[in-house]
């Protein structure tokens, strides 16, 4: 019985740690889908792009992956701003975001993925850093640093984002753009500019989430697909655009997945997030901390 209790606590702890990492992946979608109503299906592909950026800098110059991802933030920010500009001119302005906008992002997903395949091939890549090998042992609980470090940095990142959203002028404008664009215009703020900034920030988080991903597991261009359902499930469960909700939902899904793969076998774990998604949509569409 003692053995299975250890197993249980270990599963829960690793679930929470993985959940912290999921939260970093989902925070970008919470911004774009939750707040701006832009269904950015391609977000996981940008995360993979972040992974490969971290891989290149780590492989060529020995830079730390997380440090790289922070250096790469402006590049991803610019990429996001550019994509939003295209999206706005081609779809939002014409009122076609529902069908063609979705197809646009789906196309972007494939373009990013296949470009990476053509450039890097389909081999799994990984990075090297001092915290990737060792594991902390606290009592009977194992804490692998390769998951704990991303989890901690992820929580810091989300706290910073939340602070930005709640305290700064830009952040408040972003929250406002979700509620009433007209009112924002009356305050002499250009809602398009605010949305561009918000979307650019959401893509910038993909840089950091990508670094986490390649620290946690080896990456090849199409692994992002495994995360699409999970990320959106977290976003919906967390209440669409609420960052604290996203963290709670991510950890919840992380724990349940971890328990499922410990007690039923890892092949069942992918179904967990879908179960949560359907349950949320059917029972409480507003999510845990819905706005």
């Amino acid at each position: 019985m003692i053995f299975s209790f250890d197993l249980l606590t270990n599963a829960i702890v690793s679930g929470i740690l993985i959940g912290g990492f999921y939260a970093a992946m989902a925070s970008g979608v919470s911004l774009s889908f939750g707040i701006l109503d832009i269904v950015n299906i391609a977000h996981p592909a940008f995360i993979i792009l972040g992974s490969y950026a971290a891989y290149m800098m780590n492989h060529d110059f020995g830079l730390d992956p997380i440090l790289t991802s922070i250096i790469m933030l402006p590049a991803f920010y610019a990429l996001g701003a550019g994509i939003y500009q295209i999206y706005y001119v081609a779809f939002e302005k014409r009122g076609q975001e529902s069908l063609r906008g979705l197809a646009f992002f789906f196309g972007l997903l494939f373009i990013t993925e296949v470009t990476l395949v053509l450039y890097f091939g389909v081999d799994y890549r990984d990075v090297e850093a001092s915290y990737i090998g060792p594991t902390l042992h606290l009592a009977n609980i194992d804490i692998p640093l390769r998951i704990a470090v991303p989890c901690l940095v992820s929580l810091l990142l989300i706290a910073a984002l939340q602070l930005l959203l709640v305290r700064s002028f830009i952040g408040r404008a972003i929250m406002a753009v979700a509620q009433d664009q007209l009112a924002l215009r009356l305050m002499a703020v250009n809602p398009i500019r605010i949305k561009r900034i918000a979307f650019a920030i959401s893509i910038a988080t993909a840089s950091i989430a990508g670094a986490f991903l390649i620290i946690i597991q080896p990456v090849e261009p199409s692994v992002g697909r495994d995360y699409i359902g999970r990320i959106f499930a977290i976003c919906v469960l967390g209440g669409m655009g609420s960052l604290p909700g996203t963290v709670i939902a991510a950890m919840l899904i992380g724990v349940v997945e971890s328990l499922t793969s410990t007690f039923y076998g890892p092949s069942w774990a992918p179904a967990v997030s879908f179960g949560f998604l359907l349950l949320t949509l059917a029972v409480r569409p507003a999510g845990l901390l819905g706005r």
Partner: protein
Amino acid sequence: MRTLPFLVISLVVAGLVFAGALAVGNDYIFFAGYVVLQYVVLSTAWNILGGYCGYVNFGTGAFFALGAYSTVAIYNLIGKNELSHVIPIPVLMLVGGIVSGIVGFGMGYLTLRLRGAFFSIATLALAVVLETLIVNWDYVGGSRGAYILRPENAPLIGSYVRYLFLTMLLLAVGSLVIARLIERSRLGYGMATIRDDELAAEASGVPTLRVKLIATTISGALMGMAGAPFPYYIGYLQPDSTFALDYAINAIAMPLIGGTSTWIGPLIGAILLDSLQQLITVTISSAVNLLIVGCLLVAFVILAPNGIVGLFQKYFQHKDDDFVGRRPASLDEPPAVAPSGSAPESPA
């Protein structure tokens, strides 16, 4: 044109296609043609929900795979009696269609009362969960995959691949007739109103949920029917590749490139795009093939939102550039009030 003459004409065209393929005298044309026809069915099916109703389904691969795995299940069920060679493909199509149709209905029922984007995301996740189920279901091969022995010959026609080609050809004709029938019926007009403005449709008395559920069911069923003969075509079915998103991108790209508002758009898109893909797969590589599909999709949705059909209409009828089947949006200014989502919320 009424439906009956249309049916006769398409059957004649189908007959000519089959005769032409026979005249080439090489079985490769049937192998390649089968895939093109399969995509005609898939993109037509996608377009019934996506093009007519405006709801994006990312789960084409899942519905397709459901059809394929229904066939594997039936094959395993009666394969032991050495009867497997005589199950007619149309029966398998029917079973696959029923299974996928039920799943499509269930998906729609759970998610379509909410905003449209939720449906799209749920279909994405559906592929993952169905794949998980299949991987864990040993009876249909699990993660190892399933082998299906393709009979050498079919009665009357000769080689089995010709038989597969013929059944898929008839299914393609059937799905085009269904799509055209829907387009010109009350149901189709109901779907068009949902696409244009769901709130207004609801207010004018269109039973939106019912219309959407009919659309998801028909669309899902046709995708399942397209998948049912697939195990016989491919010989070895593996969950990873059967549930792949590649089907979804093709099924979305083809109608959008051809034009989503009429039955002929997906047909044109599927024939053009898949012929191109067959060519690229043979001459360059299958990875480049997906890159080109992605680029074409993005280019078309940005530059020619009404697809090839729209380009033709503009060229020949000088249609107004802004007419895209939606509310005209002012081009100088951003919309004053943001559309609250991809589709207005309907009362749950």
